[in-house]
């Protein structure tokens, strides 16, 4: 009996080209006759454009074109995943620092850069709205023109939208104790090591756009709309991203490039600098007020949560971030009365977009920190208070949604044990623990084609984007298991709308569950066809034939797939094409448009040491326990846990945009925007997988890629509090912030 490949840590599929340096990223694509673009943007946040003089730029040798909004069709085309508010180039005003007012196309990158530096922009700096308070001031300017917005009560405000969720009756219920606190999560940026690069190429059929985009089909629709082309004439080639984390989900400058490329009749390439990449994407910051009612035994009675997310100047996908995250803001707990009010608030800043966790890290930071506060008030252990309120598996904890789909108490207990909870703690150290919850995908549409070739090898077409999370490997393992094909004879083709069937998107930790299911179905389709082929070929009734991975079983004996294909197709040859799909339909009336397919739940434990004199924090141990259903590739799951947790370490201890009073970001780029290096990581990191095969995906899998980023901050916050005796509610917990908190307390005496 062959050893199953599911559950084995085979090496990354696609790893070899990456270590050899032969992996082709979008920046490595070169086309003949290619022009190079450079954006022109202002060194201020919000400005009225009075005039743009491109005459000097046009004189630069090698410059072929300089375009402003004046050169685009009127009205200037707009795009956006939620609604079309974002213009190809700034129109009349710049709405955020980095919004381009012009674009230069030249024969070389250098010429384009020189040209861009010669574009003269006459502008008047305007006061910018860069905080929740500024945006909500009744006298505040409107960030977005109401003409662009849907009708509704917020149309003439800076509130993009407001969501109200909940159940029970927060106002009438009786709680013995109540506490209320405010928590702040900063603006941080994805900082994928691959900066944004795009390439648009006019072709015989229409246009091809190269972009490391997580949602090629979304980009395809956007380009088709902007250029007024049918989808069949727009091809998106999406090389594997060099890191994305959600920041590469939605279109940025591809529509502009596509327009110009068609216009000039030549391919046009744009590579953003790292600073420009920071100006292109970020996470929404959030101010979360949590008022909690509870009994003296630690039972939660109500959670009253108000979250204000500061989004950017254009909607992008920010509304979905706020609604999806706030919907489950009360966390993985049994809470009889919940009120959640959440708002997405415009500002003159970089459009906030999807970023691993999709709003949940912000909510979890607040709600988990609050649980610690409740425990402190009651003199209760922080594990005990969580255990008291965690639902059992199968228990309904949100009235309109699926019940708890995992043994979450087990995850918490394993995290506690792994971090040494309750064991003696050396002086100067502290431990923290937190849970995290994120709702899985609510709608989905993944299609897959699997081709079984004559020699028994397989090509699979899947529109998932493998940005490092290892989708290729998982899909390879699934097909290997289902069809009995050795992994090295399977090729996964992704990232080409011209060849690969539709996939809604790569997001929400869905690929193993949704696309994985589609691939299983495509394999089932192949096996069904093989059964019919065998019946036809060997003259046996189909009902008498069994198909198992790698072979068909006839009454008179077995035939391998290879033998069957040869016998059936003979001299004329052929192949077997299997199609599979997985869809979650839109559920009208559900606040999220559908119930989550699964809950991504994690328990994180941390042990830290704080230097009280300087505020510096060292993390001795960080433990991530994920309720994963089934780890199809355990090493890949651990890789996701560790990567996500260290990314969270960044926003916990060191990452934030530093802005001046005009909203200008002072720390763009790798020098002053600090992310963890090899020297900043925990001394020990542990990833534990709880596998109860209770997920909706193949073999009982759930999604795992975001777990580690959901609850690391509150675990570290709790650990710091134990170490220094002060709770800090604003991230990041920089040395300066910790020192200030300690010294403020000292002053209070």
């Amino acid at each position, binding site marked *: 009996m062959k050893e199953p490949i599911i559950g084995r840590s085979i090496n990354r599929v696609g790893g070899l080209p990456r270590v050899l340096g032969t992996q082709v990223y979008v920046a490595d694509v070169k086309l003949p006759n290619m022009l190079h673009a450079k954006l022109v943007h202002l060194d201020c946040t919000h400005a009225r454009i009075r005039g743009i003089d491109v005459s000097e730029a046009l004189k630069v040798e090698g410059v072929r074109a300089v375009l402003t909004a004046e050169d685009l069709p009127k009205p200037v085309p707009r795009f956006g995943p939620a609604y079309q508010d974002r213009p190809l180039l700034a129109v009349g005003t710049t709405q955020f620092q980095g919004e381009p007012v012009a674009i230069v196309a030249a024969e070389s990158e250098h010429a384009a*850069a*020189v040209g*861009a*530096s010669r574009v003269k922009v006459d502008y008047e700096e305007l006061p910018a709205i860069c905080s929740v308070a500024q945006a909500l001031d009744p006298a505040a300017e409107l960030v977005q023109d109401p003409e662009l917005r849907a009708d509704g009560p917020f149309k003439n405000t800076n509130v993009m939208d407001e969501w109200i969720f909940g159940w029970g009756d927060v106002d009438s219920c009786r709680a013995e104790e109540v506490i209320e606190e405010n928590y702040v999560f900063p603006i941080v940026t994805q900082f994928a090591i691959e900066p944004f690069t795009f390439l648009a190429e006019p072709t015989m059929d229409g246009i091809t756009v190269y972009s490391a985009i997580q949602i090629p089909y979304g980009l395809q629709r956007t380009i088709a709309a902007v250029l007024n082309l049918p989808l069949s004439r727009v091809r998106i080639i999406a090389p594997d991203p060099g890191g994305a984390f959600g920041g590469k989900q939605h279109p940025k400058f591809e529509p502009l490039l596509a327009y110009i490329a068609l216009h000039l009749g030549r391919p046009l390439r744009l590579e953003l600098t790292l600073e420009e990449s920071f100006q292109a994407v970020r996470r929404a910051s959030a101010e979360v007020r949590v008022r909690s009612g509870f009994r003296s035994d630690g039972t939660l009675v109500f959670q009253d949560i108000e979250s204000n997310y500061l989004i950017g100047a254009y909607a992008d996908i920010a509304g979905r971030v706020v609604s999806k995250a706030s919907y489950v803001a009360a966390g993985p707990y049994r809470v009889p009365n919940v009120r959640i009010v959440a708002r997405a608030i415009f500002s003159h800043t970089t459009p906030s977009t999807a970023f691993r966790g999709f709003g949940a890290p912000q909510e979890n930071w607040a709600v988990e920190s609050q649980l610690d506060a409740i425990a402190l008030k009651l003199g209760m252990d922080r594990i005990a208070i969580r255990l008291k309120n965690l639902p059992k598996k199968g228990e309904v904890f949100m009235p309109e949604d699926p019940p708890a789909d995992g043994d979450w108490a087990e995850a918490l207990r394993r995290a506690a044990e792994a971090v040494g909870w309750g064991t003696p703690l050396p002086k100067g150290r502290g431990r923290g623990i937190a849970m995290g919850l994120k709702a899985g995908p609510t709608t989905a549409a993944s299609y897959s084609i699997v081709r079984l070739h004559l020699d028994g090898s397989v090509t699979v077409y899947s529109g998932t984007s493998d940005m490092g999370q290892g989708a290729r490997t998982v899909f390879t393992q699934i097909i290997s298991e289902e069809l009995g094909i050795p992994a090295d004879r399977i090729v996964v083709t992704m990232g080409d709308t011209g060849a690969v069937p539709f996939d809604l998107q790569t997001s929400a930790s869905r690929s193993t569950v949704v696309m994985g299911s589609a691939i299983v179905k495509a394999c089932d389709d192949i096996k069904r066809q093989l059964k019919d082929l065998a019946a036809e070929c060997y003259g046996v009734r189909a009902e008498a034939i069994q198909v198992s991975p790698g072979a068909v079983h006839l009454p008179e004996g077995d035939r391998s797939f290879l033998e069957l294909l040869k016998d059936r197709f003979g001299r004329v040859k052929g192949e077997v094409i299997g199609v599979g799909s997985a869809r979650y339909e839109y559920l009208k009336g559900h606040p999220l448009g559908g119930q989550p397919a699964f809950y991504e739940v994690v328990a994180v434990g941390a042990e830290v040491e704080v230097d009280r*004199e*300087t505020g*510096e924090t*060292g993390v001795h141990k960080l433990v991530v326990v994920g309720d994963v259903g089934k780890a199809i590739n355990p090493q890949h799951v651990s890789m996701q846990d560790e990567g996500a947790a260290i990314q969270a370490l960044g926003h916990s*201890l*060191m990452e934030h945009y*530093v802005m001046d009073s005009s909203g200008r970001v*002072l*720390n763009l780029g790798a*020098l*002053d925007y*600090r992310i*963890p*290096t*090899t*020297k*900043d990581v925990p001394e020990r990191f542990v990833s534990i997988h709880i596998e109860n095969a209770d997920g909706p995906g193949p073999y009982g899998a759930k999604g795992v890629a975001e777990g580690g980023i959901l609850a690391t901050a509150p675990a570290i916050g709790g650990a710091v509090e134990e170490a220094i005796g002060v709770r800090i509610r604003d991230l990041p917990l*920089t*040395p*300066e912030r910790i*020192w*200030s908190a300690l*010294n403020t307390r000292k002053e209070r005496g």
Partner: protein
Amino acid sequence: MRNYKYLRPETLDEALSIMEQFGAQARPLLGGTDLMVRIQKGQAEPAAVVDLKRVRDIEARIDFEEGMTQIGARVVLSDLVRHDRIRTTYPALVEAASIVGSIQIRNRATLVGNICNASPAADTVPPLMIYGASVVVAGSSGGGHGEAGQRRVPLRDFFLGPGKTVCGPSELVVAVHIPVPQPPFGSAFGRLTRRRGVDLATINMACSIDADGLTTFVFGAAGPTPILVGDESGELADADLPQSRQDGLLQSLIEKTSPISDVRSGREYRQAMLLTIARRVLRQAQARRQVQAG
């Protein structure tokens, strides 16, 4: 942003005449870890970049001569910190040079470059100053360069402000000279950063205690230039000095600094950390001096 010439002189005279010709429009290039970054960001727009790495008279050598260590302008930091005699003679300098950037940076960045960039936060400068280092400045005939066409400027007189030194537009620093300290001598370097990994200093400092007990501090990233202060009482050399007295003396030295708030840190925190780190650095200097005292 503009196109610049790349020039690669082979003698010092050639180099100096290029500098003379272009004046402030020429920038000397050694490691490039500061200059290239500034050019890339548009903060510097020279007409000519003058690569000094082939200049015969600019050395990549470390020589010891009669109580004076001579470090040529082409010596890169990674070689400096590996040098046995430098390690034993100037531990604070090695501590500082070891954390300038990453290994990739230290394989290119030169000691002279770190000095001439004149960042108030330069890590190698405070230790060089406590050791009493000087730079050797070469210029064309005239301009006080004497017969050898060179003049010596002690580092304490070298810096004028952020990015500004007394080096004129047609002059080049060709070497660093550091006296060998007379034992018993203790020295130490310390700094504070936002993360443990590679970072610019929020504050940095070096401390020395010489044979007479003269305690010198140089504070970096706490003013427009590194700030040299000293206590002649000899009290700070005493490891048994009561903490409050030590703090008082340290505080009076720190008062000469003028830390600001910037993207890396607020002023109040910088101020407090100057004392916190000074205590630690003093302790280490005391311990090292004690070892030499036997």
